């Protein structure tokens, strides 16, 4: 089973988290919202599957490229 790492697209702050470890997601489902340059960036699942690990909680600051979540495909 392939794993997909969801990365932060920009340095910023996690505003909201929509999933937790074990949540099944479809491609395009929201994982979380990152705030950067006073703009809300909706981060969506790149593939359908199950959220395996989650590295984030609201209020946490992230750098560009930081892993936000891991999704197991299928």
């Amino acid at each position, binding site marked *: 089973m392939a794993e997909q790492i969801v*990365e*932060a*697209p*920009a*340095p910023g702050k996690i505003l909201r988290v929509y999933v937790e470890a074990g949540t099944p997601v479809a491609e395009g489902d929201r994982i979380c919202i990152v705030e950067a*340059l006073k*703009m809300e*960036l909706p981060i969506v699942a*790149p593939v359908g599957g199950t959220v395996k690990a989650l590295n984030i909680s609201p209020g946490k600051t992230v750098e*560009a490229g930081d892993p936000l979540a891991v999704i197991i495909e299928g």
Partner: protein
Amino acid sequence: MPEGELLGILALTWQASVMLGLGGLLIYLGIAEEVEPVLLVPIGTGIILANIPLGGLTETGGLLAVLRRAGIDTELFPLLIFIGVGAMIDFGSLLERPYTVFLGAAAQFGIFGTFFLAYFLGDGGLRLFAFSFKDAVSIGIIGSADGPTSIYVATVLGSKYAASIVVAAYSYMALVPIIQPPIMRALTTAAERRLAMPARAQKVSRRTRVLFPVVTIIVVGLIAPKATPLIGTLMFGNLLREAGVLERLSQAAQNEMANIVTILLGLTVGGMMAAEDFLRPETIMIYVMGVVAFAAGTAAGLILGKLMYVVSGKKINPLIGAAGISAFPMCARVVQRVGLEANPHNHLLMHAAGANTAGQIASVVAGGAALALVPFFV
């Protein structure tokens, strides 16, 4: 009737009434519609204050006249604003993606295109409007999408339209989210807009970040000496930010100083809009050419972006070229929005921010280059 009473109402001309209405409109847009309130509310109030008959604020010794002499005629206010702007801008997104510098440069094309148009409509051709060579240059600088540079160039050149130019520049910066997207969609294909770019970029060291402002002052200063006041203050502000040991000064530049000078600058610019200077066909034309300038700059950035898309083997999304005009961070946000619309996994924000901050430097250089070239033609 006792002397002094009702004199204001009796002296009120229709022109002054229009200006009072315009001032009220800017205040309304700022507060009710939240369009650049930080600028429009002081400017709107300045317009009202300047157009109250017999108020005396714009006569010798009046508040607005004193501020104008002290802060605009000396070019002090735009330069002080630039120290604050420099302290606010993180050039990291540019340093991590050095190629974006070309996008910032390309987007300055709007300046030169608009200059030719203004000069052609004015003294250089059709003579439909009273635009001298220097006025045409000042109008072109609206295309830099950079308020302080617009004020600086227009006042150094002594353009009689300085106030209209500044108001046009600031209003169009607020309208970037409306002006840009149609041009972006027209000039790019859906496949181009969908292209996602990697989030991770090469990290730049602290040494690079500290050296960058100093090196930029020296390099730009030696190439375009007339840009030294602008680039010097912008980069001094940035040095305060990146030094790491000047947090107090950096915060003061970004907050207290920028805020105070914004209040003074807004009031003064509004105060420069007396009815007899403003209610002319030239003012309307300046607004029309302002849109042309923004659109041409956006298009030039996009076209270079498309070229980079091809040359890079489809690794660079051409949309980020639209962020080359320096309205920061409005353009970067617009690019992010249009990119995300084409592909929900596509976050172009930081790439666009690179082009956007490059545009900030390029607009200053373009302003300096224009100032250096004007004496050869006048």
